[in-house]
């Protein structure tokens, strides 16, 4: 079974990422059995059908798909995937923060795609809490990427107070 990083641990995981092949239609494509992250287009086209399946619903957003499309339904998903088609495509960081901070999504956000060691720390800060590290990479080694820094200046999902507020609190304490 494939392994991913969830929170701070390497775990086995059975979720599949389902993509539309060329010629597939979101309306009619056959959905695989088992827990599956569906493309946004499939979710939008077949919402009621997906909700009636036995499996908990999952969806994934590509880097040009904003979380606005899920806003109303966030709480229904056990897992929301955010795709990084290339690790240099940084749109997913904004998507993750919006899911957490604007839409108050509390389930799992999983980075999928070109997910590498050196981005995990940034992803974690933006509210991504599961990481499907690219299959050809050493996932054990990548785990260390989560802890690149022990402190950060900015507020983000993982730390709601910027360092300056914590510094001031410390000085006035």
């Amino acid at each position, binding site marked *: 079974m494939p392994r991913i990083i969830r929170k701070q641990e390497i775990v086995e995981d059975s979720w599949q990422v389902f993509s539309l092949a060329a010629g597939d239609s979101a309306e009619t494509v056959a959905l695989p059995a088992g827990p599956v992250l569906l493309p946004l287009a499939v979710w939008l086209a077949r919402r009621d059908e997906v909700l009636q399946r036995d499996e908990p619903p999952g969806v994934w957003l590509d880097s040009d798909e*904003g979380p606005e499309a899920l806003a109303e339904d966030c709480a229904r998903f056990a897992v929301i995937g955010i795709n990084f088609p290339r*690790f*240099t*495509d*940084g*749109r997913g*960081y*904004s*998507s993750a*923060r919006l899911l957490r901070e*604007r839409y108050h999504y509390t389930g799992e956000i999983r980075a999928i795609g070109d997910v*590498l*060691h*050196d*981005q995990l*720390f*940034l*992803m974690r*800060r*933006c509210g991504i809490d599961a990481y499907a590290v690219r299959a050809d*990479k*050493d996932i054990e*080694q990548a785990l*260390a990427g989560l802890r*690149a*820094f*022990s*402190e*950060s*200046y*900015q*507020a*983000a999902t993982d730390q*709601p*107070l*910027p*360092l*300056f*507020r914590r*510094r*001031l609190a410390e*000085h006035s304490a």
Partner: protein
Amino acid sequence: MYRYDRIDQQIIDERVAQYRDQIGRHLAGDLSTDELRPLRLQNGLYIQRHGPMLRIAIPYGMLSATQLRKLAEISQRYDRGVGHFTTRQNMQLNWPQLEQTPAILGELASVEMHAVQTSGNCIRNITTDQFAGVAPDELTDPRPYCELLRQWSTFHPEFAFLPRKFKIAVNAATTDRAVIRAHDIGLELLRDERDGIGVRIFVGGGLGRTPILGQVIREFLPRRHLLSYLEAILRVYNRYGRRDNLYKARIKILVQALGIDAFRRQVEAEWAHLQDGPTTVPDEEFARIAAHFPPPAWETLPAVDELHAARVAADLAFANWVRRCVHPHRTPGYAAVTLSLKAPGAAPGDISDTQMLVVADLAERFSFGELRVTHEQNVVLADVRQRDLHEVWQIARRHRLATANIGLLTDIICCPGGDLCALANARSVPIADAVNEKFDDLDYLYDIGDISLNISGCMNSCGHHHVANIGILGVDKNDEEWYQITIGGQQGNSATIGKVIGPSFHAHEVPLVIEALISVHVEQRLPGERFIDTLQRIGVEPFKARAYAGRDRRRGARQENREVVNA
């Protein structure tokens, strides 16, 4: 200047460890060349024509004497004893070894320095006025704002992989010396009766292939909202800036495509969610950072030092230096000094290890141990007593740091160009040399008066040629070096993008063209007019006509290439 606390130091130390690990994994084959590239760029490391180049961050141009000594030591130990100051007030080393770069970063961290985000598609080094804190026309010291932005932008998790690089500059003076409208975001500090200090925010400026001046997105924003508002701008850009075409990926293209009003509406809609959130900066934080920039212990001195005045009267060479290289200071009896790195024959902005040590000593003896790097690629001692100017001049002169050409034709802003840079289409330093040779008479340079001449070796425009009175851009045509000339650009409050005068010139023609342009000015000027004034009064045509006059004769053997070359 800003001094690190335990946390600042820890973050920088962890960065060194992270980078060392990345290079180690690369050398072990676990991190491919393509995977390493964006990571090393965010640590200032380029792979250049002859090997790596390391760009070291000098936040808003501020250096201590101790830091400059460390840079001298690093350039001796790991490089070839020379550093190059850039238009982002940083320093580049052109000959480090890849394997040694982690050690260099370790050395830098020991003096509170780093190479964080000096390249890559992220928020770059914040730049500002080299006379911050001492300029008579300043509203408030911009450096605390720059430091606030430095901390906020350092490893910002959401904005580490933007569509393209992102540059921010801050100005707090009546005269803009930071070219803020040529930046992705330009910030102008203002004071409002009711709300105190705030910022006017320009967005969507930038040079490069498509030079555009920034437009106002907010006329006045109280300073406490600065960071949350910038987050809103950056988030809109990160999400909607183009990623399909490298040349259309800067925020200026997004702003142009949407129009400033639609862009503003998007930003304001995003900001509505962020406004008054935890990233709102309390006055206490501005005060905490400002406490790192106290005015130095200036003495109470008369406004005019008699001895200094007598020396100026007695020595023409000294007087010329004072005229060009000494600047007014807000405190009586003090002056700011520009040490020119534009001596004839020197690559503009280059500083040798020996010169670094001399400058560090000068800073320590005469200017409270601090100095600044200018975006014009010179060095400033900001707090020199008038009575010490003569001694500073004598020492500087011995080390070729006192060329009295600041603001003159030979004070050229110039990128390293094709001699070193892998991106360049053409060399730029030899053009600067040729201009220097052509205009080697200081008296004539004084007669020509204030003018800016900038050279970029390629469209990336590191040499800011678009905002020069005379701009020179290297272009590659049929593997030959050609140069496109723009005129009429300027920095400052009336920042203007220069206009291309016509087909490009071969390298050997460039000094002649400059001479032709200058002669039109000298012939046509009214008393007191600068080159830009004359140009604005009489228009481009007379300059253009002179530049191309007799060109066929000059071009000689190159004639047959013309059609292809200018295609």
